[in-house]
């Protein structure tokens, strides 16, 4: 599981991954997942990071 900051290209939600911890940042209305089929909503060991944008 790669450490780093990733963004969903569809909902633009940013998640910081570090080890076995996912830090999700949500602004505005609460709720998760942000949209149906969001890659970020998968369990951390099943996320396809190639489908996410790496944030530098």
């Amino acid at each position: 599981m790669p450490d780093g900051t990733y963004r969903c290209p569809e909902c633009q939600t940013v998640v910081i991954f570090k080890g076995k911890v996912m830090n999700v940042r949500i602004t505005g209305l609460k709720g998760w997942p942000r949209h149906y089929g969001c890659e970020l909503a998968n369990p951390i060991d099943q996320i396809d990071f190639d489908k996410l944008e790496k944030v530098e």
Partner: protein
Amino acid sequence: MDIDDVVARLDSVVDVLNKMSAALEKQNRIALLEIFLDQNRYLAQKVRAGEAYVNIAFFFLNVAAGVTVAFATTNPEGYVAMSHEFMLDTSQPGAFTIIYAIDGRLTPWLNTVAAVPMNLELAIMVPYDNIVMESDLTTVTNNDPLQQWLSLASIDTYVRKEVWEADQQDLDLAAKEYALLREASHA
């Protein structure tokens, strides 16, 4: 019975009626303040006035073994958030640790190393004590050796920040007046 006796008796009747009227007025005032100090009724009034809106937030997470997911949520700009109902379900009672903080402070009512399914009526249990001014942080950890799911729903009302800041002063005054009236009516 002369006229003075009649006048004296009438005066005493008027005196009793005045006391009854004052007592009724006090009871009415207490009843009004009880409504104002009820968070659900306060929020209903704000929604009706167009100063607030309700959102039901649903969270559904599949969490791998040993993984922690932390949600840092910032309010819509210009709004404060009040949660009034909170519902939690899990695939495995006791598997999740949950930590909840409002505006950087841990809350006393949602911190557990072994969460179980529950429904909380926050507006009744802790009225006006679950107000998110800027942001909150919900952290869940799956302690189970297997993947588990957790679902969480909370009914929140977003109140315009300037409205809430003005109303807070009125609520403080109402709470003081209510306490004084209740004290006086028991004396």
